């Protein structure tokens, strides 16, 4: 176990370094001049030169990378050119928003996906099963942004039940907070529910064919008890590890969903910064979210191996 842990931990370091180089390199490739986009309608050449110098844009790319990495090492993610705010502060500001949205989406996904998965496995090849499958396919096949637009049209414009967009902090007004985040959370959770449902279903089917379930049945235990206590408990392990990964994906930003619902989270911050060529923000935020993702990945792996020692290999 220790050897496995050490190896996995050591693997993380090159991965994060490659991530940092990828995001840095990728946006250097982006066409457009950050100073020019920052200047907007004002484009006096002298002022532009000053900005380029101030943000070291006039230095060679590898040198810029070294400066950035040095900063990151000492805990400084840099400063947003556009907003003159520190990237670290931006990350701290957005993290709770994305966290709340991801958590709500996850709750919705769990609430729909797991029961649907159980029902479709238990009632295999009945109308229930088909209905659950159909739902899962629907969730997988609906483009996020389209669903978002339709929901806004229905619940905000036509019915007027929910605010169309925006975000209110939990601490400020929890009712408002829930009202503003329910639609985007549903849009995100819906797709995830579909994935969960499928995994739950196949894990349950496998578990229910296993010996211990047959034994339990043979002992004359009630079917509901067999399903919930024996099969479900065993089926949940792979589902939970998958969940960790999906949560990681949610954290790294629901790009389009946040855009449509004007949610000020990571996803919106990244996209706006890409379009504004606010390099420091893109680099910093993607580095943070990618690292979170990699950590969750690691935790999931460890959990999986703890349950399934055979896989250590």
């Amino acid at each position, binding site marked *: 176990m220790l050897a496995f842990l050490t190896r996995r931990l050591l693997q993380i370091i090159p991965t994060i370094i490659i991530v940092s180089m990828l995001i840095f390199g990728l946006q250097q490739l*982006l*066409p*457009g*001049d950050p100073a*020019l*986009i*920052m*200047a*907007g*309608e*004002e*484009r*006096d*050449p*002298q*002022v532009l030169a*000053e*900005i380029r110098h*101030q943000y070291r844009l006039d230095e060679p790319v590898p040198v810029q990378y070294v400066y950035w990495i040095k900063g990151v090492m000492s805990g400084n993610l840099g400063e947003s050119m*556009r*907003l*003159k*705010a*520190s990237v670290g*502060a*931006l990350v701290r*500001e*957005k993290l709770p928003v994305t966290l709340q949205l991801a958590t709500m989406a996850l709750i919705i996904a769990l609430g729909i996906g797991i029961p649907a998965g159980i029902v479709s496995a238990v009632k295999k090849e009945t109308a229930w099963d088909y209905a659950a499958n159909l739902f899962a396919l629907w969730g997988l096949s609906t483009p996020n942004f389209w669903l978002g*637009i339709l929901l*806004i049209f229905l619940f*905000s*414009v036509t019915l*007027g039940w929910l*605010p*169309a*967009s*925006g*975000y209110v902090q939990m601490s400020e007004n929890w009712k408002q907070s829930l009202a503003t985040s329910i639609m985007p959370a549903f849009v995100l959770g819906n797709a995830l529910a579909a994935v969960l449902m499928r995994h739950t279903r196949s894990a349950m089917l496998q578990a229910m064919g296993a010996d211990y379930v047959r034994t339990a049945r043979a002992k004359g235990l009630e079917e509901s008890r067999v399903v919930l206590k024996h099969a479900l408990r065993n089926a949940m392990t792979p589902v939970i590890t998958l969940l960790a990964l999906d949560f990681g994906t949610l954290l790294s930003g629901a790009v389009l969903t946040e*855009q*449509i*619902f*004007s949610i*000020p989270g990571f996803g*919106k*911050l990244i996209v*706006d910064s890409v*379009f*504004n*060529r606010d390099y420091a923000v893109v680099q910093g935020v993607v580095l943070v979210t990618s690292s979170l993702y990699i950590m969750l990945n690691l935790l999931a792996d460890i959990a999986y191996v703890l349950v399934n020692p055979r896989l250590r290999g």
Partner: protein
Amino acid sequence: MLPLRSLLLALALMSAALAGASAQTNLRIGLAEDPDVLDPTLARTYVGRIVFASLCDKLFDIDENLKIVPQLALSHETSADGKTVIIKLRPNVKFHDGEPFDAVAAKYSLDRHLTMKGSFRKPELASVESVDVVDPLTIKLNLKAAFSPLLAQLTDRAGMMVSPKAAEAAGDKFGLHPVCAGPYKFVERVQQDRIVVEKFADYWDKDHVFIDRITYLPIVDSTVRLANLRSGGLDLIERVLATDIKTVREDKKLSLSKAVSLGYVGLTVNLANGPKAENPLAKNPKVREAFELSIDRDAINQVVFNGEFVPGNQWVSPQNPYYQAKFPIPKRDVAKAKALLKEAGVTTPLALDFMVPNGVEFRSVAELAQSMTAEAGFDLKIRLTEFATSLKQSEEGNYQVYLIGWSGRSDPDGNSYSFQVCGQPQNTSHFCDKEVDAAHEEARGKTDPAQRKAAYEKIAARTIDKARGSVVYLYHPQVLVAHTDRLEGYRQMPDGLIRVIGLKLK
């Protein structure tokens, strides 16, 4: 960051406690974009100016007719040679931090604009050689040469006054917590989410400030912005789509305010910037005339903007005092366009690289221009380009036709000089005509509007007439602001800014 945070929290709590006594009024404004840094010296976006309208007063302001009126200044006097401007300042004005506004503070603010690293005001105030304090309430601007648009510059960010004490302490971080002398003071900002300001108790004109708090919320999607206004989540939204006007008018709880904007949208033709300019459209004015004749500006206005915008063919709108009535909008004439192309010996279809910054309305305009010009024999190849990229590519001359707008300035110089004079930064087409340059300098040196207009007529004759210049102007947007009926006293100014003095929320 942390102490500031807790301070803000304490402030918020205090104001919440006060709210218990009497209901606070809070005006929620939906913005079309997230503003950039809130430092008048470093700011450069249009949307940022909307927020400054409540935070930072300027030396001068404009009225509905674009006349310059005093704000933090009381009066101004330009010397006969136009090289000195004496400005008297309003007495008893305080900044948000309690510091007095006087000639020293005014000089400090202007010097900051002129000298700070990365200042975008520097080019706007380029004509200013130095600023002198004459007495505690009088400053004198010494100019390098007469420059009539200067006062117009002082009605915008270049005329915004900042508290010297706060600015000195914060340096280039001033924008995180701006301290000015406007009717509202800064409370907090959550990036991409909101900017909150509250009534400034010591404002010089406090008797006309009625709303306690204003919250600016950036909501990029216009549909969502309108949906929020209709559902009561917002009280006022800017940049309503022309196609949504009907919806606003049908809603009994909403009102619409509008004004023809100072800006324009047009097709910039690359005349001489790089190898892409080697084409008949750039080289032969006849082909450009044919190009303009093939476009139906009215139809574009009808189809994309429900007829709500103002078709135009100059850098100022037909309503503007500087519009040259001698050069009216040419009517669409496909037959003549075809004849001109034939005369020019162009083999049709003439394929052209058409760069279009990405955006829904721009895309429709581009598609219409494409289908209209196709009838005359042009083949515009639309290339949707992300805005950031399009700026760079326009600079490099990587386009043949470029659909681009300008948000507009109150002085006609701000809509033309940088685009038409040789070597100016906005002149990406590399249009260059010595007579046009001379006429521009003439217009800058004169203060009499009639004389300036005469100078501009010479320019129009060499640019607008028969599409000789680099831009085929298409239309002038309407500034469209929709708000709830509970809001009283709203008046739209042509600069698109949301002025908050005199507003009441029932």
